């Protein structure tokens, strides 16, 4: 199966934001945008749904907190009760600081790992770059040529409005 990609390179942040908005409006679907740094407002410009990472963070934080409360209860009240200053075995106020820390740890680490997992990043992974320039000073917009409505001339017209530097078409063989 072959896939055809249509790529435009741009020099300025305003241009890449503008062109992303314009092609979305014209009905094309954006495959990806490459930029040397995080662009504010790009997610809205290419119509990405809000990230689901906060939910991962929230649920795993909750899980960490629940686990820690149970663990503290088990260690201090069930398995080996310890008398600390005459307090009851299961003294909740004493559990709060550690529970809080473990919750933050679980939430933080799991968010980072969930992010790596969904963006398929791991040590030793070979980077697939369009062009080394996108790590330095250039922005690239990638569109996939999918169906009959796809029209390269119309696309080039839009690209011209936003001072495109270079246009490229790539055909990729992909093993399915």
């Amino acid at each position, binding site marked *: 199966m072959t896939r055809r990609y249509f790529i435009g390179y741009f020099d300025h942040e305003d241009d890449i934001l503008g062109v992303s908005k314009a092609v979305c409006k014209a009905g094309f679907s954006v495959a990806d945008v490459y930029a040397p740094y995080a662009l504010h*407002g790009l997610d809205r410009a290419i119509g990405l749904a*809000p990230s689901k990472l906060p939910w991962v963070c*929230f649920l795993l934080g909750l899980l960490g907190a629940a686990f820690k409360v149970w663990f503290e209860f088990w260690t201090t009240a069930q398995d080996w009760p310890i008398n600390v*200053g*005459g307090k009851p075995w299961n003294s909740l*106020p*004493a559990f*709060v600081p550690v529970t809080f820390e473990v919750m933050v740890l679980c939430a933080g680490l799991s968010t980072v790992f969930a992010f790596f997992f969904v963006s398929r990043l791991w040590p030793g992974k070979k980077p697939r770059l369009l062009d080394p320039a996108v790590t330095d000073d250039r922005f690239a917009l990638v569109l996939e040529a999918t169906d009959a409505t796809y029209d390269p001339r119309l696309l080039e017209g839009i690209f011209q409005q936003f001072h495109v530097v270079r246009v490229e078409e790539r055909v990729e063989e992909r093993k399915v």
Partner: protein
Amino acid sequence: MTLAGAVTAAAGLLLAPQRTWANLLLACLFLLGLGLAGIFFVALQYATGAGWSVAFRRVPEAMSAVLPYGAAGLLLVLLLRPSLYSWTESLPGDPAFWFKRLWLNYPFFLLRSAVYLGLWILFSRRIVGLSRRQDRDNDVRFTRSNIRLSVLFIVVFAFTCWLASFDWIMSLEPEWYSTIFGVYNFAGLFSSGLAMILVLAITLERAGPLRGYLTADHLHDLGKLLFAFSTFWMYIWFSQYMLIWYANIPEETNYFVRRLNGFWEPVFILNFLLNWAAPFAVLLHVPAKRSPGMLLKIAWTVLVGRWVDLYLMILPTFAGKLPVFGIWEVGIIAGAAGLFFLVVLRALGQAEIVPGNDPFLEESLHYHN
């Protein structure tokens, strides 16, 4: 509302003097807290060179106009009813209290109060005055001198707010002490102040004057601040509670024992439901922080929570075994609210609603987060 409050207060002074004086103290501290939060917010924006908040800066500026009124009320309470503070009559003779005997003497106490109040009013007048002059003279110089003033004010505020909390609230129970008390009062003061900024800004946006200036992005950031400071309040609350609970020293635990006995306990729990649990649960979600309606509800919750918080700091000393709530409580706080809105609306009318010549205004109007 102000008149009704004044009438209630006058009647209360005759019928239930101790409770009314305590409630007047509460109302004055509430007003002073809102005024201080306003000027502290403005100073924070200047000191950090923040641009986002300029579009609605006139709101916290106007809030600081309430400081002289709160100060006058508080000085009246302190002058006319020193017996609210039991140490004005006698202090325990314990040798451990030597410093308290030195610190808590009535003339020095009044002098300190006057100094705190004077400094706050002086700084707020100056900062707000310079900000308003910029509307006419269009000179960046005013922004520069306000940055210097603001930095100085933040330092002064840190010390005076801390000491004032000790003097006016903590010394109501002179045998009890907690070093974190000043921070605790500051946390409540600032989170209720942010809630009041939200209430005023959203109302002004709906009524017209701020329409087109106040955006969802501004609300989002104010919402984040409210979320953060209500959580900060809970953090400090718990820090104070846990150390006292753990150490279990009678003269310290006495404070919480009194507030956990019998029917005080529901009020005690209500305090952190209103001030933390509700804002935390609701504002965790992004759309809530961008929705004016939801923010308005949460802001009012926090403002009621601030009243409950101050009530729990002050009233248990006077009310005895049962929490009291009636005409004296409602009337006086309603009167204070009326006075507050009267003063703030007048202050808002005295200047342009948006500081048109501020160098950061453009940034604020195009702010995205």
